[in-house]
C-alpha cells in the first residue's frame, strides 16, 4: 500500500474537519476490507452464488450518506454491501447473510443481492437491473403522500440507465415532484460492456433534461465532492422541487461479479485507477498532509477495521444455517411488517 502514490492533488477544502475526514476514511476502509474479506470467503466456498463487490466505489455511498438525515430512505441494486455498511447496518448481519446463515439480515433467505433493514430505512438489495428505480420513486411517493421532508436515494448503474422503466420513472417523478435523488453510479462498465459501446449519451445525467430534472456529474473518487453534490441534491428535493440526478463517475476494481474474467478492460487501466484515483488513498493523503493524523494513527485505524471485519467473518462462519422450518416462513404476512 505504501508504494502507492497519489498523483492528484487532493481537493481538500480547508473547512473540512479532522473528525469528518477520519469518519469518511473509516467508513470507506470498512467497506473495502469487508469486501476483500467477502471475496476471500467466496473463494473458500463459504459464500455462494452471485457476489458483486463494491471495491473502488466506496466514496459514492459514504459521501451521500454524509448528506442524509434520519428518515431518509435508500434503495439499490444487487451491488449492495457498501450501501448497507454505509447506512449503519451491522457488518456481522451482512456477512452472515452472505454465508447464508440464520443471523443474516434476511435469515439466510436473501443472500448477497437481497438484504433489507427496516431500522436503517434500507429497502434492498434488488436483483433485476433497473427495477429499483421505480421502487425508489415509490418510496419517495410515500413520503410526499405523508407530507414529510424525507428524501429517497435511488442508486442504479450506467447499465441500468438503459432500461425503459428508468425513463418511465423520470417522467412520473418529475410530473409529481417526487423527493428522489437518482444516483447513477457510473462505473463505466455494464457487466462487461463499456459505456461507449452501450449508451448513446456520453453524460447520462443529461437524459433527465427532457423531463425537466436537473443533474450533474460528480467525481465519485472524491468523497468530499460526492458529499457536496449530495447536499445540493437533497436540498432541492426537501424544498419540494422534485427529483435530482447525480451522475457519479466511479470505477469498480473487481469484476462485475466473482466469476467475471474481466477481459473487457486491461489490467493497466485498473491499475492506473487504483494508483492515481483511489478514494481511500485520497483521504489518507489529506489526513497525513493536513497533519490530522500520523502514519501510526492510521495504522491503528486499519487494525481496528480489520478486527471488525474479522469478527464479522467469524460470526458469519459460526452462525448456524437456518432451520429447515424457515423454508416455509415469510411467504405471507399476517400484518404488513413495515407498518408495525
Amino acid at each position, binding site marked *: 500500500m505504501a508504494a502507492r502514490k497519489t498523483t492528484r492533488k487532493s481537493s481538500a477544502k480547508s473547512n473540512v474537519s479532522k473528525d469528518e475526514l477520519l469518519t469518511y476514511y473509516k467508513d470507506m476502509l470498512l467497506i473495502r476490507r469487508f469486501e476483500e474479506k467477502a471475496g476471500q470467503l467466496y*473463494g473458500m466456498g463459504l459464500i455462494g452464488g452471485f457476489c458483486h463487490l463494491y471495491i473502488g466505489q466506496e466514496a459514492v455511498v459514504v459521501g451521500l450518506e454524509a448528506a442524509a438525515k434520519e428518515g431518509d430512505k435508500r434503495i439499490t441494486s444487487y451491488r449492495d454491501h457498501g450501501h448497507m455498511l454505509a447506512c449503519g447496518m451491522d457488518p456481522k448481519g451482512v456477512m452472515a447473510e452472505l454465508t447464508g446463515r440464520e443471523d443474516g439480515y434476511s435469515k439466510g433467505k436473501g443472500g448477497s443481492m437481497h438484504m433489507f433493514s427496516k431500522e436503517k430505512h434500507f429497502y434492498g438489495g434488488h436483483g433485476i437491473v433497473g427495477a429499483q428505480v421505480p421502487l425508489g420513486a415509490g418510496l419517495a411517493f410515500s413520503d410526499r403522500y405523508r407530507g414529510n421532508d424525507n428524501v429517497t436515494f435511488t442508486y442504479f448503474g450506467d447499465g441500468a440507465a438503459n432500461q425503459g422503466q428508468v425513463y418511465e420513472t423520470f417522467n*412520473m417523478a418529475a410530473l409529481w415532484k417526487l423527493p428522489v435523488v437518482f444516483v447513477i453510479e457510473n462505473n463505466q462498465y455494464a457487466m462487461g460492456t463499456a459505456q461507449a459501446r452501450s449508451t448513446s449519451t456520453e453524460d447520462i445525467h443529461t437524459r433527465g433534461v427532457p423531463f425537466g430534472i436537473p443533474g450533474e456529474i460528480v467525481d465519485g473518487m472524491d468523497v468530499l465532492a460526492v458529499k457536496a453534490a449530495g447536499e445540493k441534491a437533497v436540498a432541492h428535493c426537501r424544498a419540494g422541487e422534485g427529483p435530482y440526478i447525480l451522475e457519479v463517475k466511479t470505477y469498480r476494481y473487481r469484476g462485475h461479479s466473482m466469476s467475471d474474467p474481466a477481459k473487457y478492460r486491461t489490467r493497466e487501466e485498473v491499475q492506473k485507477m487504483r494508483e492515481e484515483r483511489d478514494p481511500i488513498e485520497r483521504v489518507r493523503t489529506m489526513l497525513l498532509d493536513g497533519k490530522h493524523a500520523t502514519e501510526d494513527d492510521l495504522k491503528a485505524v486499519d487494525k481496528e477495521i480489520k478486527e471488525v471485519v474479522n469478527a464479522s467473518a467469524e460470526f458469519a*462462519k459460526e452462525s448456524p444455517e437456518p432451520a429447515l422450518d424457515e423454508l416455509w416462513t415469510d411467504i*405471507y404476512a399476517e400484518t404488513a411488517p413495515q407498518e408495525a
Partner: protein
Amino acid sequence: MATELLMPALSPTMEEGTLAKWLVKEGDTVSSGDILAEIETDKATMEFEAVDEGTIGKILVDEGTEGVKVNTPIAVILEEGEDASAADNVSSESSQAAEEPEEKPSAPAAAKPEAEAPTELMVDSSPDWPEGTEMVKSTVREALRDAMAEEMRNDENVFLMGEEVAEYQGAYKVSQGLLDEFGDKRVIDTPITEHGFTGIGVGAAFGGLRPIVEFMTFNFAMQAIDQIINSAAKTLYMSGGQMGAPIVFRGANGAAARVGAQHSHDYAAWYSQVPGLKVAMPYSAADAKGLLKSAIRDPNPVVFLENEILYGRSFEVPKLDDFTVPFGKAKIWREGEDVTLVSFGIGMQYALEAAEKLAEDGISAEVVDLRTLRPMDTASVIKSVMKTNRCVTVEEGFPVCSIGSYISSVLMQEAFDSLDAPVITCTGKDVPMPYAANLEKHALITTDEVIEAVKKVTYR
C-alpha cells in the same frame, strides 16, 4: 504467521480448476489487489488476486496443474519479518477454516402438501352473511367501486392509481365518483406507463401505504409483471419478513368481446403459480365487493382479476356496514349429487347454465365457485367430489397448465378412491383469440362443451 493460499472458487459452480500460470515467484512481495495467478475455471480464465500483503514463501502447486480442487493449498504467504523456513510451519488455521462449511441441510423430502389428507378436511361452510340480511341489487362495477370507497374512507393510506381512473372516471367506469369524493391526492391518473407506475406502486407499499393499482386490462400488466412478481411477491421472503408489499393489482382480465388476441388473455393460471401472491377472481357482485375489501386490507400483494363482461351484470349484495369475504373459502352455488362442477370468475356462468340444463335431463350437478385461486379451497372441492365421485372444471383460460389441471392433480392425489371417472378440464381452446365472431365464440369454452363433459364423466 505464515498462511496458506487456497485454490479459490471463482464461479458459483466451480469445484476444481487448472492453475494455468503463476504471475509471482517465491520471494516476491505482494500487496492486496496484486494478481497472483491465472486460474482456469469451468467457464473462463480468471485472475486470482492477493487479499493480504506479504511475501510468497513457497509455491505448493506448479503452474499447468489440472484438476486442482477448490480449497487445496496452492502457496504459502509470509508476513513481514518471517523467513522462508516459516513456510514449512504453516498455521493450519486457514486450511481448517477452508473445510467444507458444515454439512449441507438435506433437501426437504417433498413439497408441503397444501391440503391435508381427505379424512381431515377443513371445510368452512358458514354462510357469507347472516340469514335475514337485507339484500340490494348491484352491478359488479358498482360493487367494486363501493368496496374501494369504503376502504378509502376507513384508511387514509389507501389510494388508487392507474390510467384514466380519475378525471375519466375509469376506462370501464369502475372508479366512478372516487375523484370527487377523495380528491386527486388519492385518486391518481397515471401516464400510460405500466412498468413504471407498477414499480412506483410497489415502492409506495414498501413505504407503508396501501396502493390499489388499476390496470385498464391485465393484458397491459405484462409490461409490469416483473414488478408484480419479483418486487411485490418475493420481498417479504427475501427480507426474512422485514418488508412486504400490501398492494392490490386489479383490473379486467380475460376475453371481452371481439378485441382480438392481445386484449383477451386470462392470467388466472399465471399468477396463481407464484408463492407470495394472493389471487382472487370473483364472479358475483357480492364476492367482488367482499373480496376486494379483504384484498385491500391484506398485508400481502393481491392480484384481483375482474372481467369486463361481468362489470355490468347485476347480483344481490348484502346490505351490511362492513361486508367482507375471506380468501381461501369456496362458495357452493348449487348443491348436487351426480357431478361436481368447479369454476371461478366468468367461468361460473357456463357452469351454472350447464347445471340448469343438466337438471332438466335429470343430472344433479353441484357447482363450486373457488372465488380465490391462491389460496385455493381445494378442501371444499374434495369434499364435494367425495359425494359426487365426478368432477368437471370450467374456465376460459388456455388448457396447458390450467387451473383445472391443478385441481385434477389434487383430486388424483388426494381423492383418488372417490373418483368414478377421470376429471375433465373444460378450458378455452389452445389458440390465440381470433377476431371473427364465430371463431371467437368457438375459441372460448361453451355451455354445450360443459354439458358434454358432464355426460362423459357420468357415462350418460
